[in-house]
């Protein structure tokens, strides 16, 4: 090795967050130091992802606007300066608006549950951030069962949607609550089955351990990310589809379907409580994307060896933004599913594929200890094991549905 090349873990920018933190808390005695470190981590998560949330809403409105051939929000001026900088201060105007709006609670509503629902929702979505490694050594909480913790904390969010829908004492909201429950029961299973292969191959439930398992390069340049294997790619796609459903994003936004249920469980919420729901949705989206990066996309690792000089947290951020833009792109492109289509898709398609993928991973793992010929042969074998059921089941499910005939429209 050339002595002048600084190995990535020791680079100054890589260690900068720790150095900065230790320079602040280094002089404190041990129990206090731990507490202050934890508080700093919490504050940073809230500040960084709060800001990301604010500008993500703006990016979403801008991109949706562009997709629909309109400019999107562009009129909010910077206060006192009166410069409209592409509507860049729009999120702050939205924040002030939601804070100053009147908070209306319906007379017949279940007052306590109506209040608790947004609080519970936001609390549980923030809890999920605790175990995501944002960079090398930048994981807020090191847990042995971190992946399990993440999905346990995330599982309670749909409960809050139900509470909101039921407490509002509104028929549309109640329908939304029922839909939210059906959606959770359907998509929880493929979501969990999608990451089980990763845990199987990495041999650990800890997030840092999973990223450690994706280290190294094949042929010197090809990263060992799980997404670049047949089972990993299938798992990633299943995970992202289920993540869309879990975070109530379009095309799975049937609990809050504006055009059929007004806004579902959000109908009776206004002001800051509505903003909390909005915030929780984005936090859930960001957390699930962060988990997808950790599980399948190599976490904070650089995609190519010579790019390792860029600090790890920058890579994590870049991957996160790419996935979030994907979420927005999907929202702009796909129409909303019907409830029967949604449940059929989960139970007849995603769950069987995820189960097949689990067996596929076992075969992949068994073939890895054999000769070079088998090592090469497992690529087409494992790809075929996933692809053939995908094609067959896809054909079967869409039989009689596509191509669509328009009976009432003029041809």
């Amino acid at each position, binding site marked *: 090795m050339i002595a002048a090349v600084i190995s990535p873990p020791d680079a100054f920018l890589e260690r900068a967050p720790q150095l900065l933190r230790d320079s602040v808390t280094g002089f404190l005695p041990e129990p206090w130091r731990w507490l202050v470190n934890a508080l700093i981590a919490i504050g940073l998560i809230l500040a960084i992802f709060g800001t990301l949330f604010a500008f993500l809403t703006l990016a979403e409105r801008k991109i949706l606007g562009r997709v629909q051939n309109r400019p999107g929000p562009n009129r909010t001026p910077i206060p006192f300066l009166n410069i409209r900088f592409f509507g860049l201060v729009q999120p702050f105007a939205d924040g002030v608006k939601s804070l100053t709006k009147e908070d209306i609670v319906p007379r017949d509503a279940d007052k306590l*549950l109506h209040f608790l629902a947004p609080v519970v929702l936001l609390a549980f979505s923030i809890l999920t951030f605790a175990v995501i490694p944002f960079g090398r050594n930048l994981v807020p909480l090191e*847990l*042995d*069962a971190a992946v*399990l*913790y993440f*999905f*346990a*904390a995330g*599982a*309670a969010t*749909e*409960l809050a949607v*139900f*509470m909101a829908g*039921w407490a509002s*004492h509104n028929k549309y909201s*109640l329908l939304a*609550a*029922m839909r939210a*429950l*059906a959606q*959770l*029961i359907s998509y*929880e299973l493929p979501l*969990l089955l999608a990451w089980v292969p990763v845990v199987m191959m990495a*041999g*650990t*439930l800890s997030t840092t351990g999973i990223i450690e398992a994706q280290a190294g390069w094949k042929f010197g340049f090809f990263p060992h990310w799980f997404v670049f294997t047949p089972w990993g790619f299938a798992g990633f796609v299943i995970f992202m589809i289920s993540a869309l459903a879990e975070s109530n994003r379009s095309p799975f936004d049937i609990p809050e379907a504006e055009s059929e249920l007004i806004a579902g469980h959000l109908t009776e919420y206004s002001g800051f409580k509505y903003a909390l729901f909005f915030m929780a949705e984005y936090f859930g989206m960001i957390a699930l994307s962060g988990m997808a990066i950790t599980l399948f996309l190599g976490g904070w690792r650089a995609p190519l060896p010579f790019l390792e000089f860029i600090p790890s947290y920058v890579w994590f951020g870049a991957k996160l933004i790419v996935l979030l833009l994907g979420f927005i792109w999907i929202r702009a492109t796909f129409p909303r599913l019907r409830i029967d289509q949604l449940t059929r898709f989960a139970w007849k398609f995603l769950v069987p594929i995820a189960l097949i993928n689990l067996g596929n991973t076992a075969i992949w793992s068994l073939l890895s200890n054999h000769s070079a010929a088998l090592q090469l042969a497992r690529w087409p074998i494992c790809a075929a094991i996933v692809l053939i059921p995908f094609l067959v089941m896809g054909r079967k499910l869409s039989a009689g549905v596509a191509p669509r005939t328009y009976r009432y429209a003029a041809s």
Partner: protein
Amino acid sequence: MSLPLLLIILVTLGAAALAMALRNLIHSALLLIASWAGVAAFFLWAGAEFVAFAQVLVYVGAVSMIVLFAVLLTRRSRADLAVAPDSLGRAFSGFLAGGAVFGVLVGGVLSSPLPGSKAVEPTVSVRDIGTQLMGPNAVALLVVGVILTVALLGAVVLAATEPKPDQGQAQEGGR
């Protein structure tokens, strides 16, 4: 007894007692979920990380949904949700069944040999639990899996059976 443990006990048992006392079924179900979360907190306090997260994932995340779904599907209106106390005989049989379960559990706890108070705190990782489940206790795991699969198949068969046209009236409630 430490303060966190006392708080956990208070939340768990208090939520369970309130769930029994309240007449609104949705409130009872939500309090039952709070009680389950309290049990998970107890596991966490006892250092059983894996069991705690599994408890939250399965009970707070999934079983709670099924309970709430069942409540919403079987009630016709919101007024139907508040259940009036039924007959005295029903309360008596409820107490009898609950007491029997309680007796069996207490008997099981009392009769199981516990190590002395000087037990060494074991350090169990998730990996150890996994190897234990897949190695020595694989049979038990398989049996549980088979039982759950049979239950699932039974539910599918019950739900998928179309009522016969001539006796459709009688079976309409079953679907």
